[in-house]
């Protein structure tokens, strides 16, 4: 007996068979339990049955043996109707349960606006893919230019004392990105110092020149590694946070709310973040330098049996002001890159949770790529101007 959905009876597997009768008529016999949780027969199976009975022009249904059903059967019948229409078979749904007929009718009665969903996109050819990638590149370059243009205007307004942002935000961001980052920056720098110290110690002891571990660790850390380690930690820690914060504000219409008040998000959100990182990254880099040197000293004294005072004196002799200045300039540039990447990706963020995730990922990738490029460029420049 046909049942209404929701009735629970002992489940028997769904069955499907075709009984041919007189002069082109056939009956599709449906039996068992047709629920989504069952292994339902596929539509193709019905197609095969119809093919095995050539000359069928009209199809009706027998649901005497059907015990229970849900939308699994409804979608099967809807598909079957289309299949029959394509083969010129007249479908007579009279034998189906009343509830099922009503559900089918309901699905058909919603007017098609023609705007739901996207049309199926054919797989693009290589040339059109190349073209669309090029267009994307042009667009994203345009967006980056616009961001820097607006950023420059915001900085000009800052110098003229007209920039609108809350000073309390600036202090808070400085604390979050600076003081709160001390433990992680310290730990990573100390460990990098130890690694550099070990490698130096192993090579230099071959020549009995272990004292030069202090030169190697000190110079590498102060010129490049301190700033680089700080910047990479900050890009994962702070740049990603900037992108997520600004991206979420984009999703929640908070940025629209700022704009409608005539407050530029570049001044209100981006400027304090840029200023905070430009100020904090060099300070963190100095701290990273000290911890890196301590890491080297740990190896030098424990593994390399140097005295601490000899190690520190050698370090002091090796490092000049020019090296410290190089490190600080690099750190400032990296700080600006991390803040700009985080804010840029946040501002570009779409209006969904997935877009916030993409913005965060892309902020980290962008900043690391540009940090490495900047490191290379700065090294060449420092050499050219005689700082190294």
């Amino acid at each position, binding site marked *: 007996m046909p049942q209404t959905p929701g009735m629970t009876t002992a489940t028997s597997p769904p069955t499907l068979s075709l009984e041919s009768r007189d002069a082109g008529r056939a009956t599709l016999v449906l039996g068992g339990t047709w629920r989504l949780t069952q292994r339902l027969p596929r539509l193709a199976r019905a197609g095969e049955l119809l093919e095995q009975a050539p000359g069928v022009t009209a199809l009706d249904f027998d649901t005497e043996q059907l015990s229970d059903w849900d939308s699994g059967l409804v979608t099967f019948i809807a598909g079957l109707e289309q299949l029959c229409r394509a083969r010129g078979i007249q479908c007579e749904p009279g034998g189906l349960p009343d509830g099922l007929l009503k559900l089918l009718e309901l699905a058909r009665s919603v007017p098609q*606006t023609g*705007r739901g969903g996207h049309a199926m996109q054919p797989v693009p050819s290589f040339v059109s893919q190349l073209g669309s990638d090029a267009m994307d590149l042009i667009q994203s370059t345009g967006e980056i230019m616009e961001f820097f243009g607006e950023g420059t205007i915001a900085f000009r307004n800052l110098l003229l004392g007209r920039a*609108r942002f*809350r000073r309390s935000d600036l202090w808070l961001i400085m604390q979050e990105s600076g003081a709160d980052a001390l433990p992680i920056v310290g730990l990573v720098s100390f460990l990098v110092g130890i690694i550099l110290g070990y490698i130096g110690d192993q090579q230099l002891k071959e020549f009995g020149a272990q004292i030069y571990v202090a030169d190697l660790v000190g110079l590498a850390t102060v010129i490049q590694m301190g700033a680089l380690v700080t910047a990479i930690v900050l890009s994962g820690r702070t740049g990603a946070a900037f992108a997520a*914060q600004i991206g*979420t*504000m984009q999703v*929640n*219409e*908070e940025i*629209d*709310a*700022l*704009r*409608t*008040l*005539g*407050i530029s998000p570049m001044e209100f959100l981006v400027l304090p973040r840029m200023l905070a990182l430009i100020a904090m990254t060099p300070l963190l880099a100095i701290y990273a330098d000290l911890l890196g040197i301590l890491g080297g000293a740990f190896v030098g004294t424990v593994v390399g049996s140097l005295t601490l005072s000899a190690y520190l004196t050698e370090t002091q002799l090796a490092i000049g002001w020019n090296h410290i200045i190089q490190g600080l300039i690099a750190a400032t540039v990296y700080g600006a890159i991390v803040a700009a990447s985080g804010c840029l990706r946040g501002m570009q963020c779409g209006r969904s949770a997935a877009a916030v995730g993409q913005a965060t990922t892309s902020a980290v990738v962008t900043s690391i790529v540009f940090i490495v490029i900047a490191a290379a460029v700065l090294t060449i420049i420092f050499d050219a101007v005689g700082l190294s």
Partner: protein
Amino acid sequence: MSSREPGSTGLPHIRLEGIALGYGDTLVQHDLTFDIRRGDVFVIMGGSGCGKSTVMRCLTGLLEPRAGRVLIGGESLWEVQPAERSALMRRNGVMYQSGALWSSMTLEENICLPLEQYTDLAPQQMRAIAEYKLALVGLAGFGDYYPAEISGGMRKRVGVARAMALDPDTLFFDEPSAGLDPLSARRLDELILELRDSLGTTMVVISHELDSIFTIADDSVFLDAETKTMLATGNPRELREHSPIKQVRAFLNRGEVGPDERV
């Protein structure tokens, strides 16, 4: 219009002339020409996805139209210099659908921010104003809460309080009653009417809640998603009975356009 409400002065305050709007390759609405009179409660209505919020984005200075002009008090919003546009935008208050409160600030700070940016009031005075605006929306004493600590309906009300911070000429509401319980929705409708009556603020409300529309609207425009343009303007109570256009009557009568006719 026969049903002038108290507070309406009948002067055009915002005028749209042949506005066309879109995103990327998609045209959302075109040929929008209508007036919003000073002191009216003006409702932008239409089915879901017809572009009501897009029209609001254009009127509040967030989306440049593809064609046409928006005149606010005679000045063309999208043709003036950015600084002047910014000044025009400051005379608007906007309540967003979700409230759009700045989540890193307390409710009081949310309301104080526009005051900090554009007035020379002392902090004490700003706090007093914030407390008063919160009281207006029935949330006195909540100033120290963060947006995440209050309910969605309360956030909407704080959104109204923030939109009113600078006593704007025009208040925009994006679906004020959506997602609110019937009592809160009604309170918000009453608040809109009270503010209009006492301050003479022009109200532009996006809505498809019929009860609310019939309660508050002096005037309206009906946007259609199929033809992508406006189908009718006028008082919705009159449009419900007398509009010559079937879709408009169907919308305002919940689909019932005649004894035997359904859309």
